[in-house]
């Protein structure tokens, strides 16, 4: 079953998980369920799972990350939009350290490389409040309006 998304329906899933390794699999599953609502192929759904997992992993492996990861997945008729943020971050010194550690080396890492390769659009925003990664995958051949 891989039905076309009906525009009249909201196709939005929000998931909050503790920012720890054992929860990443759930974020993958949630993203896969939403990706399945767009008419992605099985291979494309695997791409989405990996990209979401890499985004969560980047948060988890980063010192000073927040207590939770918020994953928002939205299916539109011809694209999937996913946002991964960490939240509940400690303020002050920890947030400072966080800010400095999140350097180009991290962005250039294997995980971020995979996200950029597998998704069509990736943007990220780093602030003392946390990291915010947004990514879009389009149906092949589809154009955005």
């Amino acid at each position: 079953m891989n039905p076309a998304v009906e525009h009249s329906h909201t196709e939005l899933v929000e998931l909050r998980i503790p920012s720890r390794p054992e929860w990443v699999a759930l974020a993958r599953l949630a993203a896969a369920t939403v990706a399945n609502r767009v008419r992605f192929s099985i291979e494309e759904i695997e791409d989405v799972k990996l990209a979401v997992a890499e985004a969560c992993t980047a948060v988890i492996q980063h010192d000073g990350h927040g207590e939770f990861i918020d994953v928002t997945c939205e299916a539109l008729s011809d694209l999937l939009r996913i946002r991964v943020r960490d939240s509940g971050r400690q303020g002050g010194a920890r947030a400072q350290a966080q800010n400095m550690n999140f350097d180009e080396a991290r962005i250039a890492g294997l995980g971020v490389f995979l996200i950029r390769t597998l998704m069509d659009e990736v943007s990220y925003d780093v602030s003392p409040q946390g990291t915010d990664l947004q990514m879009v995958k389009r149906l092949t051949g589809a154009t955005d309006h």
Partner: protein
Amino acid sequence: MDIKVNVREAPGDCYVVDLSGEIDVYTSPKVKDAIGELIDRGVYFLVINLEKVRYIDSTGLGVLIGGLKRVREHGGSVNLVCTNPQIKKIFDITGLVKIFGIFESEDAAMKALV
């Protein structure tokens, strides 16, 4: 969400590590430990069988790369068995096909090892 690791001795001072399940940030430490233990024991020729791996992410790749680096310091090598096209694709797009020997069968991976 689970990984199974099975280590077995094969002919010619070589070991096969069978992995089965999903290798991610939660499960990769288990894989790292298993490979690390072998290397600590002086095993430098490894076949890692990924045929039953359904999923691998950058932490899993990192563990494999780390193992390869360690055995190479001792003149050893790591060959992978990989038939799942999705997993192969990950090695392709990261360029890791160039640093690992990747084979369609365990037999081929073992023969190419020594």
